[in-house]
């Protein structure tokens, strides 16, 4: 099998921070102005590079959280206490600051409305970011393709894009399911356990409907969910996975 691959020089570009918004106690969304940004496909990521005064460089990959139709490129960054890059991005960086980035990249983990559905999106923690880009894209294009989202977070306070997801779920074709693994707040109508086969079956779609599946989160979470989906009968080739860490944050 072969495929014609788009050829494009990948160059580091200086991006300017337009806005930093607190999402949770540990995560921020950073919107950038990027000169000559070529546009992205939902699910893709960028590489971010920081350079210290002594020339030391640290590089990390971050999924793009904004939809392709949104005005600005936005990344959601979760602060990892002993990380090398995330405490700077989600703590120090402010409007007007400049950082280097390159992208968009990652043709494998991406979805366009034209690719069709049904869609099954499973997120662990800040793994929701690239899946949110897909849902923002779906909404911007007024698509009604069957989409199911399952989000796992430790606590309600750590659930990203909570309000926006509720608004999106009011639209046709999208079902949003949530599970909290460390607490059960009063009046909570979601699940309160780790993702398991029964939960994935309840979320659907069934393997026979051949959904396109995208799973993103910490390595252990993605491994567990992807294995469970294949055991339930989903085509391994249709399960797209994006693991993050252990990269030192």
């Amino acid at each position: 099998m072969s495929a014609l691959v788009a050829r494009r020089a990948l160059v580091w570009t200086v991006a300017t921070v337009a806005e930093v918004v607190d999402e949770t106690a540990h995560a921020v969304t950073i919107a950038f102005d990027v000169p000559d940004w070529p546009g992205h496909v939902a699910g893709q990521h960028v590489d971010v590079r920081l350079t210290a005064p002594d020339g030391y460089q640290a590089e990390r990959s971050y999924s793009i959280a904004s939809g392709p139709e949104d005005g600005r490129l936005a990344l959601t960054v979760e602060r990892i206490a002993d990380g090398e890059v995330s405490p700077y991005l989600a703590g120090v960086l402010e409007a007007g600051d400049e950082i280097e980035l390159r992208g968009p990249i990652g043709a494998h983990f991406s979805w366009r409305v034209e690719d069709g559905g049904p869609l099954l999106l499973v997120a662990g923690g800040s793994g929701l970011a690239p899946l949110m880009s897909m849902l923002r894209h779906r909404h911007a294009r007024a698509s009604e393709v069957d989409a199911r989202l399952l989000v796992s977070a430790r606590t309600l306070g750590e659930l990203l894009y909570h309000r926006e997801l509720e608004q999106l779920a009011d639209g046709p074709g999208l079902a949003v399911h949530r599970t909290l693994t460390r607490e059960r707040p009063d009046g909570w109508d979601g699940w309160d356990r780790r993702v398991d086969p029964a939960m994935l079956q309840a979320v659907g779609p069934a393997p026979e409907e051949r959904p396109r599946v995208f799973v993103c989160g910490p390595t252990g979470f993605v491994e567990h969910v992807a294995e469970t989906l294949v055991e339930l009968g989903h085509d391994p080739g249709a399960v797209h996975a994006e693991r993050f860490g252990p990269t030192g944050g």
Partner: protein
Amino acid sequence: MEATWLDGNGMAGLLTEVFGADITAVVRSCGSCGTAAPIGAHRAYRGAGVVLRCPGCEDVAIRIAQLPDRTVLEVRGAWVVELPRG
């Protein structure tokens, strides 16, 4: 046990540097076990360089080492990469 690999997809930046194109959607057939999987679904191990392994049998698909003055590349298995000309 916590897995120690990432996805080939996460190496898209480096792969684009090396190949001049984002090859994560290119399908590679493993020379050892025959598994056909996109490069983005291969397992990526980072050390002094990057090693991508077959998701089916862990056989080496590609090794990339970036030295100060050059990049060293070893490619294994059956891949066909088509790049537009011009």
